């Protein structure tokens, strides 16, 4: 269908170019100049008749126009015949136009992608608009009662899901302000700030993660982001060390293990061998956590990642991390769904696509 439209358009363009080549023409190329000065003289006569010019003025003007007319009449006149260029031009146009446009379009365009207007997308995601109007209601309520901490606490994760990270960070911050800091909310706030800054761990976010570690030493999420901050600031050795501690200090089947180990390898370090059980200060802290809390924290991390990839799916590393995490969490259905989404999202990125497929094979995800 779309190719038929392209063919029609190309055909119309080629025709428009070829059409004048086929017509005979007789007009002499220079004639309009002569007629220009002739009509100038005629116009002087007309003005004279209308009384806009005096006789003397008209004489001067006509003399000048006459001089110019003589000058152009001296010049050679083209015969207007085609000299064989027409056939060459016709062939060139026939070949060049489709060749240039198709090559360039195939390199740039996405002929297989349909339009995705809001109406289609809303139909796909039923309930989206209800979420929006609900958000709107809570926002209105909070504008009037900015000290309703629970409201902010509800709104934060919703904002995260919608990809409104600045708003999420603000909501978590407000909840902390009203209800008092908790490690979970602080972590969520810090994470929102990181997403809002395109994954840069800003000084503000670092401050928050440090606060989390003060309250709960060894908090793995905070620990991870502080290690990432070191990496981003160029402190490679420090980052490797911090990642290694995290890898060593937490259970070997923790969902962040693949990510953390991948970071270490990417930085040129050797990941520590998998341990029987966690040890060290960090590990003690994590082990000390109730297991519900641990799982919840892990889920928040993974859900946040999934929401971000839903909003903007061009991040190959993100998809790989998500697939691994789901696998570790033994969420096979979610992993398969994520695989489908990843393949869609990376449609235009063959390189990323093959990496995702390779990982899917490795993890045994069949779809």
């Amino acid at each position, binding site marked *: 269908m*779309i190719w038929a439209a392209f063919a029609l*358009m*190309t055909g119309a*363009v080629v025709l*428009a*170019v070829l059409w004048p*080549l086929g017509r005979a*023409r007789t*007009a002499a*190329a*220079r*004639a*309009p*100049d002569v*007629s*220009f000065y002739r009509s100038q003289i005629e116009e002087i006569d007309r*003005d004279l008749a*209308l009384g806009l010019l*005096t006789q003397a*003025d008209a004489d*001067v003007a006509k003399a*000048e126009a006459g001089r*110019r007319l003589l000058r*152009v009449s001296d010049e050679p006149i*083209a*015969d*207007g015949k*085609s*000299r064989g*260029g*027409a056939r060459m*031009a016709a062939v*060139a*146009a026939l070949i*060049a*136009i489709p060749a*240039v*446009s198709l090559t360039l*379009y195939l390199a*740039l*365009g*996405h*002929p297989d*992608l*349909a*339009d*995705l*207007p*809001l109406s289609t997308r809303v139909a796909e*995601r039923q309930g989206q608009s209800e979420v929006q109007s609900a958000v709107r209601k809570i*926002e209105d309520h909070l504008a009037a009662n900015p000290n309703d901490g629970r409201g902010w606490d509800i709104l934060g994760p919703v904002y995260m899901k919608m*990809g*409104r990270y600045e708003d999420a960070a603000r909501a978590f911050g407000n909840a902390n302000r009203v209800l008092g800091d908790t490690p979970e909310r602080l972590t969520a706030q810090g994470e929102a700030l990181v997403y809002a800054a395109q994954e840069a761990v800003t000084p503000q976010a670092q401050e928050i993660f440090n606060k989390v570690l003060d309250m709960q030493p060894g908090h793995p999420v905070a620990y991870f982001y502080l290690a990432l901050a070191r990496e981003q600031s160029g402190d490679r050795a420090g980052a490797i060390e911090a990642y290694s501690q995290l890898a060593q200090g937490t259970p070997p089947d923790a969902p962040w293990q693949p990510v953390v180990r991948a970071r270490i390898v990417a930085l040129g370090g050797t990941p520590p061998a998998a341990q029987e059980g966690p040890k060290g200060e960090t590990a003690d802290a994590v082990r000390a956590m109730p297991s519900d809390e641990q799982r919840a924290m892990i889920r928040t991390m993974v859900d946040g990642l999934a929401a971000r990839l*839903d*909003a*903007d*799916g*061009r991040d190959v590393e993100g998809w790989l991390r998500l697939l691994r995490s789901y696998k570790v969490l033994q969420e096979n259905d979610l992993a398969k769904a994520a695989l489908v989404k990843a393949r869609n*999202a990376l*449609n235009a990125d063959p390189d990323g696509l093959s990496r995702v497929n390779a990982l899917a094979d490795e993890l045994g995800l069949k779809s």
Partner: protein
Amino acid sequence: MIVEIGHYALVLALALAIVQGVAPLVGALRRDAALMAMAQPAAVMQFLLIGVSFAALTHAYVTSDFSVVNVFENSHSLKPLIYKYSGVWGNHEGSMLLWVLILALFGATVALFSRGMPDDLRALVLAVQSWLSAAFLLFVLLTSNPFARMIPAPIEGRDLNPLLQDPGLAIHPPLLYVGYVGFSITFSFAAAALISGRIDAAWARYVRPWTLIAWIFLTLGIAMGSYWAYYTLGWGGFWFWDPVENASLMPWLAGTALLHSAAVMEKRDALKIWTIFLAILAFSLSLLGTFLVRSGVLTSVHSFATDPQRGVFILGILIFFIGGSLALFALRASALKPGGIFAPVSREGALVLNNLLLTTSCATVFVGTLYPLALEAMTDEKISVGAPFFNLTFGPLFIPIVLAMPIGQMLAWKRGDLYGAAQRLTLACAIGFVGAVLLYAMRGGPIVPPVLAGLALYLIVGSFVEIWGRVSGGSSVGAMFSRAIGLPRSAWGTAIAHAGIGLTLFGLAATGWGVERIVTVKPNQPVVAGPYEIIVRGLEPRDGSNFRELVAHTDILEGGRLIATMDPSRRSFTTRTMVRTEAGIKTIGLGQVYMNIAEVRDDGSLDLRLYWKPYVALIWLGALVMALGGLLSLSDRRLRIGIAKRAATRVVAQPAE
């Protein structure tokens, strides 16, 4: 599918532009009529293709298709519909698409409305225009593609910059671009003239309407932009000597000079080399403006998200076209036949003076704009060249232009009578002088505003003296009226456009009498600004579709009597978490009361910026009047010839526009 059709249409337009750039050029050089004839349908087709492409992008905006990256980054499903349309060009990629659309529009109009034009000239003009199209289409497709896609499409877009969510965006860029890009066609005419060697009065006649169209739109575009800045930026200024504003002023100055020198070329076959040079210069300055805005060499309200790769690309285009045309110019200029000769004191002489002053003032703006950039690039030292520099250099250069304008209108072609012209301006001089003295007596204050206002009055009156001289000979009112009607519309155009400058100048002079108050008030506490009392009655929160605002209902009182109300507000845009103030502006007579809420304090009091600006509306009304003058002149389709004088007492038949 519509998005991809738009994308393909754009690519196809590029392929067509390459063919249209080559075949007619070869045809014109080999005098092959069939090849030359390819230019016209190709130009029209090119416009249709880019039009399809533009419509497709607009469709994506209107339906909020966020699978198009450009739409996702600059739109929001809740954005009011008008900004979904105007948002198409409220960003780099979309505005470049508008740019090439207008480029193609000019090509298509030349193709359609040039029956009287010689075939080879038309073919060359369209070929050169198509080179420009091809260069910019390539730029759009390779560095700024508005049709880039992403899947899955995000749920919600990032919204348009709140500063741009304004009716001004619907008007200012299209007007300005028609002006900017309009000079591309005069450039193409100049290049065509240089290639074919056809540089004569007939050429000037063909190029006249295009120069006028570009000039009219550029005038309106600059004025509109200035008014937009005035009411949005919130501190009552309307011209900031911002590099990007200067970038639009420079082509305007060069274009104004071109308009006048082309008149000399058309009527007297003189100033040919100069006219061609100005045509190249005007468009080169337009290109320079594009480069400054898009390359990231400077930051201003106008710079789009910038990227050095784009800058290098545009720099390449700039060098290719300006360098190429100047090289052609150097090759051909010596071969030009000299045209009509004239005495220093003559209409031609006055227009040469006008050209010299305009280009010099253009050069001062150029230096003031680029010197800080060059200095920063070379020494890392940051200096800021602002209003003081321009007031001291540009101002003094413009005063002689204003003084000479009515005199020039009064001089005859070939040789004129300066004394006689000055004599006929006695009345205008007297009105200007008396006006200045009266204004000084009434308003006091520094000497500059009344002097400039007097100058403006002299110009307004002086612009019509020449017309009066030709009309007043009638025996009765009826005869005078029919004489006035019978005058060429271009004569009226000249007078009206010049008077427009006078009006703008008066408005500028009057800024010296303005009143500025920066105050903190509580509701119902009156503030005095000039002759008025301003009282904020109360605050009201309101909801817009994608913003919330706090409106201050405000009364304006004169002598205790309520004469007007206004509703300035502060708007918070949720998606971009930005705040924008909506100034309250009330036009009273020709002056305006201007109020901006700088801050709302917790205790309910407001920090206000309040202005009373007498005659300020004249600044923009003047520009409208200038454009009207241009339009009248444009509607005068007659051929023109300057009538050389042997004695200065005769009446001039047809003045320059």
